[in-house]
């Protein structure tokens, strides 16, 4: 058994995918926490005295984020007020368990919790939407509603920051996806650790440089309680391909993840890519690139009994779409409510299982 790289004298229990160093449990905790602190201070993520909403799903990333932020806030005297923010999409059986986990986080970490439901925000639960529209197109709804829900929640709570649990793997995957999509504007900013969604509440990613595998190991050794499932929403085809590619790359050389982020941070876009200018939705006053935001268009359709409104651009597009779906997007076009299904091209989605982690036996 190798000795801990920190020379503490103990035996190592894990090999870090990020650096290749072998660490014992205690040294791993300290390294993990010091690194997040380094990221927070070096990137100046927070100002003292402010309120931070932590986007909490009950999953490993947000659970570890909440735990570490609380710990660092106390040890390093950030003087931040931390609150948990959860979204309840209203999918029977899906959120029940994960919301219980978030409630456990609330009690364990003594943080206030705000749960925003789709019913509260939009008047519809996802179950009701699926009943209305069928399973085929409900991704559009999940995506648009989910994204807005966090922002709206943060606004309602009047917080100063919204912290999300995006980890290094997520960022690298998004870089690859934006290259496959040819989305220069998003490629240019998807590696930013602080982004502005236009409403004055910065979205920050304290785990940007933290490997997913190390998050799993940290949660495991700290015995943190989290809801062990991946997102049930199927990724779009580009993200699906990027995800499979990144998993394969990681097996060849785990440092590729940091390389891709490095590339994303250092590349320069030639021409000013067309980014939509942001205005406010005339219906809900929410920040949007259109006069009526996508969520309001979809809601209008639902409320008027025309649920497909806003999904396709024209009937021709719809026809092409339906054909395409039959052909190649079968596995990526609908939301699934079963956990741990195989992702496209046969890759296991449940990456938060410890079996995939570098433990030293």
């Amino acid at each position: 058994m190798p000795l801990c790289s920190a020379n503490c004298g103990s035996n190592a229990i894990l090999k870090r995918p990020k650096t290749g160093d072998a660490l014992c449990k205690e040294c791993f905790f300290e390294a993990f926490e010091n690194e997040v602190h380094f990221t927070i201070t070096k990137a100046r993520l927070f100002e003292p005295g402010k309120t931070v909403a932590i986007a909490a799903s009950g999953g490993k990333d947000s659970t570890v984020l909440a735990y570490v932020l609380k710990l660092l806030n106390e040890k390093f005297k950030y003087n931040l007020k931390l609150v948990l923010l959860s979204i309840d999409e209203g999918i029977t059986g899906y959120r029940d368990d994960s919301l219980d986990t978030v409630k456990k986080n609330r009690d364990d970490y003594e943080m206030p919790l705000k749960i925003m439901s789709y019913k509260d925000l939009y008047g519809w639960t996802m179950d009701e939407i699926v009943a209305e529209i069928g399973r085929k197109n409900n991704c559009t709804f999940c995506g648009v509603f989910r994204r807005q829900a966090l922002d709206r929640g943060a606004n309602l709570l009047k917080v100063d920051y919204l912290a999300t649990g995006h980890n290094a793997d997520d960022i690298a995957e998004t870089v690859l996806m934006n290259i496959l999509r040819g989305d220069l504007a998003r490629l240019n900013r998807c590696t930013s650790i602080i982004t502005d969604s236009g409403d004055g509440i910065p979205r920050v990613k304290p785990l940007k440089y933290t490997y997913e595998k190390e998050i799993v190991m940290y949660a495991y050794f700290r015995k943190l309680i989290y809801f062990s499932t991946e997102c049930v929403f199927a990724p779009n085809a580009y993200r699906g391909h990027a995800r499979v590619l990144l998993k394969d790359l990681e097996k060849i050389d785990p440092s590729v993840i940091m390389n891709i982020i490095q590339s994303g941070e250092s590349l320069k876009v030639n021409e000013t890519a067309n980014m939509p200018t942001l205005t406010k939705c005339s219906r809900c006053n929410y920040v949007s690139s259109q006069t009526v935001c996508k969520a309001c268009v979809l809601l209008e359709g639902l409320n008027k009994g025309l649920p497909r409104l806003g999904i396709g651009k024209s009937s021709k597009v719809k026809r092409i779409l339906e054909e395409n779906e039959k052909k190649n997007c079968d596995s990526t076009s609908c939301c699934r409510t079963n956990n741990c299904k195989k992702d496209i091209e046969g890759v296991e989605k449940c990456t938060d299982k410890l079996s995939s982690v570098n433990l030293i036996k």
Partner: protein
Amino acid sequence: MCSVGDENFETEEEKCMPAGGKITLANTKCNKCRENDPIVVLRSKDAYCEACFLAGATHKFKALLGKHKLIRPNDKVLIHHQIGHPSTALLHFLRCGLDLTTHKKLRFDVIFVYVEDNSQFTVDYRKEVLKKIENEIKLFKFVIKFVSFNDYIVNNNKLGDIVDNPDNLTLNEDDKININNIFVSKLNKTNKNDILHIKKRNLLIEIAKNLNCKFILTPEISSDIASQLLGEISLGRGSHVPIDTGFCDDRNQDVKILRPLRLFDMKELAFYNKLNSLDPISIKQTEINPYSSVQDLMKKFVNDLQVNYPATVTTIMKTGDKLAINDNGKQKCQLCMGPILNSNEELSSAESTSFSHWVSTQKPDNSKEKSRQEKYDSILKHYKVSENNNYCYSCKKIEGSIKS
């Protein structure tokens, strides 16, 4: 955290990667002249007749060279010859262009070079391959020179003999072992591929200088460019994408590398050769595990896209074409010769990794009196960003593994 749904797609069909269409040649006319019956479908959607296809290919080749107006009349141009359809098509494009009597005639002088790097085979087989190459070039009435890649590596990156007759190339059965012994044994296959790629480029530039050529033409096609681009991103060379994959690599002041075939795909050039009755010489293929290195994986990934989603290969290239070289620093990397970025105040992935390694190797301070803040401060106090400014991010990692 799951990022699914973060993309802000406007419509549902944007989420799907366009699949290759299934056009049949029956009942269609040539896309260009709209008269003749088509004989080939390109990019799974455009059907062409023979005349329009050949005219289109020739035009595409000349248009890309002409658009950039880099080569001037009577400039000497070195052609990096390889084995396969792209190089054979390039021979034909050049021969036809140079032989024209119209104003469209290519007006530069060309000289070919073959860099011998087949040490995985026996000496006898390698000699056989060289003879075939010599004959292929003779068929087109061009001049070719031969250089040994092994010599260059073994002699510490010094350009050896440039020979006219392949018989004069020194080939040894243990060339492969010698290369491995020099630096490669310490590197994983990804870094080994990377450094050999860089050394080969450096060698080509040396050869061009020696032969007084201002330009080098290389035969990469679209799928090579796309997989190269994804590979560069995965190795942390994002700021070098324009010179590593663009039409013109101008990192060297005296010699520019141009990629005139980068908009062609393999089917197009194979068809071009077939219609011109050209049969490229063949060489034994060695079995490669696509999961053994980043570059091999990217080749497989792009080849799969080319079959199932050809439009996405084009998108990858277009993404690359919209990137600019990031050279905020004046210094050049001693290995790859690309610009080294100035580190600014902002936290970067490179710095995060180096800090992670630092905290993983610091002996823990278990004294009860010190606060967490004090312990952290003492770790940070001794942490220094290594100011090795001779290498870029990626080459620094390679140098690190060679030295370790």
